[in-house]
C-alpha cells in the first residue's frame, strides 16, 4: 500500500512537472549520463509575452569545459569563450586553455513565433562525471519586444537522494517564476557511444 502511494505520488509530481515545464525553457530530457559527451537539445517553448524570439543565449556551467554546437541554417551562432584557470586535456592529446562560456543563437532567418511552436537548440557537452549532481544552464530569450531570463536557481540546493526530491523539484519548477533549465546527471546504466569520456565496459576478470 505504502509503495503504491509513493508510486502515485511520484507519478503525480512528474505529471505536474510535465505540465508546467512546457511553459519554460527546458532540455528535451532532464536526465543525462554523468561523465559522457552528450547530445543535448534545449527547447524554447514560447516567446516573451506574445513577442517573437530573435535571440537565445545559453550560459555553460563552469563544470563543463568542452562544448560543440550543431550547425544551424536559420540562426547565426556565436560562442563567447572564457580563460580556464588551468589547462585541461582536450581531444587528441591537446590541452585546452579556454572554454565556451556562452552560446548565442541570433539573427534568425525566421524567428520563433510567440506561441504555438517550439524550437530545439542543439549542442553537445562533456558532462561532469558526478552522478547525482544537477547542472543548471541559465538561458535568456531575447524577443522583438523584451526578454525572458530563465536564470533562477533553487533557493536551497536540490538533493537527488532526499526523500522529498520529486516534491522539491516540482516546487522549484512551479514556484520559481523563471527556473533555469537543468540536467540531472545519472550513473550510466546502459551502454553509451564510445566518444571521449566513456570508460567502456569493465575489463574481463584476468584468467588464472
Amino acid at each position, binding site marked *: 500500500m505504502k509503495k503504491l502511494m509513493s508510486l502515485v505520488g511520484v*507519478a503525480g509530481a*512528474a*505529471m505536474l512537472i*510535465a*505540465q508546467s515545464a*512546457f511553459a519554460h525553457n527546458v532540455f528535451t530530457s532532464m536526465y543525462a549520463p554523468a561523465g559522457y559527451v552528450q547530445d543535448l537539445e534545449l527547447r524554447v*517553448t514560447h516567446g516573451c509575452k506574445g513577442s517573437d524570439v530573435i535571440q537565445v543565449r545559453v550560459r555553460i556551467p563552469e563544470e563543463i569545459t568542452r562544448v560543440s554546437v550543431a550547425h544551424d541554417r536559420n540562426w547565426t551562432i556565436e560562442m563567447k569563450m572564457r580563460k580556464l584557470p588551468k589547462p585541461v586535456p582536450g581531444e587528441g592529446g591537446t590541452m585546452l586553455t579556454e572554454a565556451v562560456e556562452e552560446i548565442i543563437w541570433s539573427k534568425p532567418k525566421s524567428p520563433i513565433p510567440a506561441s*504555438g511552436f517550439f524550437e530545439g537548440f542543439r549542442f553537445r557537452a562533456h558532462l561532469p562525471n558526478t552522478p547525482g549532481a544537477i547542472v543548471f544552464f541559465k538561458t535568456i530569450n531575447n524577443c522583438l519586444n523584451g526578454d525572458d*531570463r530563465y536564470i533562477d536557481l533553487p533557493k536551497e540546493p536540490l538533493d537527488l537522494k532526499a526523500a522529498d526530491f520529486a516534491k522539491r523539484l516540482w516546487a522549484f519548477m512551479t514556484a520559481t517564476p523563471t527556473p533555469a533549465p537543468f540536467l540531472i546527471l545519472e550513473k550510466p546504466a546502459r551502454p553509451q557511444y564510445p566518444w571521449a569520456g566513456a570508460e567502456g565496459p569493465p575489463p574481463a576478470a584476468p584468467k588464472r
Partner: protein
Amino acid sequence: MRRPLPWIVVLVLLLGAGIPRAEAHAVLMSANPAANQQLAESPKELELQFNENVGPVFFRVLDGAGKEVGAPGDIRLDGNGMFLPLGDTLTDGTYVISYRVISADTHPVGGSFAFAIGGPVAAGASHVAASTSSAWVLPTVLNRVLLYSSVLIAVGSALLLLLLEWPGTSGGRVRRQGRLFAIVAAVSFVLAIAFGGADILAAGAGALFTPATWVAGVKSTLGVSALIGIAGALLAVRAFRRGDSHGLLWTSAALLVASFLVTGHAATAAPVWLAATSVGLHLAGAGFWFAAFAPLSAASRSLDAPEAGRLMDRFSSRAMRLIGALLVSGVILTWIQVRTPANLLTTDYGRRLTWKLAFVAALLVFAAFNKWRLTPKLLRGEANAGRSMARSIRIETLLMVLIVAIAASLTLPTPPRALADQAKAGAAQAMTGAATDGFKGTWTAQGYAVDVEVTPARTGENMIMVRFRDAAGAPVTMTSATLDLSLPAASLEGISSNGQAMPPDMFHFMVSEMIIPGEWRIRVNGFVDDFTKIEFEGTVPVR
C-alpha cells in the same frame, strides 16, 4: 532503474500529460480600457484579450479604496477574450483592473493595471484607508460576537469546573453549557474562515461554496487562529462530555485561548510578550465571569438559599482574583493600544473602548451589589433572595453581551498605537533630511544591499529610486534592474517595471499602478550580469 514499473507509469503519464496541452503561459495581448488609458466616460464592459483560451479565477475593477465597484455581471468568455459587463456607471476617478486567469497549462497568471475616467490616472490623490470590503463586514462582526461569546463561555465553563466545587446536579449544568458553546465556537470558527476568505477575495455570497474561498481563508493569519480554535473547541466538546478529565479541560481551554493569541491587534502589538499575556489573562477572567452567570442564576433558584449562598461565596472569592487579573490586563492592553487618555475620546478606536469601559463599570456595580448585598441575604436564607439574585444576574448577562459585542467591533478601526507608529515613521523620514513624505529602506540579499526610496509612498504615481551596494557599502553597477509589485491584501499582482539606469549605482522607476493604499510587496531584481539576478524583497506602506 532497479524498479522499472514506477518509471514506466511516470513515462506514460508524461506522454499523456504532454499531448493535449498548449505549450505556453497565457499572455495578455490587449485590454479595453488599456493600462493608464484616460476615458471620457464609464465603460459598459471591460475586455481582456489573451493569446489563448483562459479560465477566469477573478476579474474585477477596484476603486481607489481597493473596493470592488461597478456592480459587475457574470464574466463572459469569447474565444481568447474575457469580458466583464458593468451594471453601474463608474464615477470620474482612477480605477484598477485586477485579474487572475488559469491558462491551458494550468499555470495561474494574474495582473493589474490602472485606468481613469474623466481625467488622468490619479497622481498623489489621497484616498481613505483600505478597509475590508463592505459586504463582509457585517457577517464578520456578527460572527465575531458569536465567536467571542462562545469561546469565552466555553473557556469559562472549563475554568468553573476546574476551580470550583459544584454541589449536586449544578455541575452537570456547567458541563452542558460548556459543551453547547464549544460546539457553537467550532461552527463560528469555521464561519470565520469562510468569511475571512470571501473578504480576502472580495467575493460575493456564492463564494462561500467555492473551494478558493476556503483556501484563502485557511491561508490567512486568521486561518491559523481558526484551526487552533477548532481543535480546542472539538477537544472541549469531548472534555465536557467526560467532565472528569482535568487534563483535557485545561488543554482545550488553553487551545481556545491560544487561538486568540496568534492574530489580532492585541496579540501582535509590541511588546508581544506583555500583550499576549494580557490577552490570555483577559480572556480567562472574562470567560470565568461570563460563563458563571447561567449556572449561578440557576443554582440560586434551585438550591436551598444557604447552599446557593455558599456556592456564590466560593465563586466570588475566586472571581475577585480573576476579575482583578481581568482589570489589570485590560488596563495594560488599553495603555498599549491607546497611549494617551485624550485618544479615548478623539479616535474611533478610543470612543468604542470608552463605551466598553462604561459598560464594564456598570457590570462591576452589579457584581458588587451581588457580592455584598445579595450573597449575605442568601447565606441568611432570606426568602426572595434567590429570585433577586437571578434577576441581577440576567442584567449582568445582558451587559456582558454588550461588552463582548463592542470588543468584537474593536477589531475594525485602527488603534491609536498604529496611528502613532505611522506618524512616527513620517517624522523619522523628516529627520533624515528626505522629503517629509515617502518611504526609505535598505534590503539585503546574497551579500548585496539595496537602498529603496519610494516617493511619495501615497496612492497615485510614485517614483522609486534604488541604489545597489555590496556588503562593504561600495556602490555596485548592475547591468539592469526590474521591479515586481504586488498588494497581497487586495490580491493585486503581476505588476512589473523596468528601471532606467542612472550610473553608476542607481535605477529610477515611475510606477502608476499603486493607486490602492496598503502594505505593498516590492521585489527589486538587480542583474549583476545578464545571467545573475539578485532578488531583494520588502514591504512598503502606501497611504
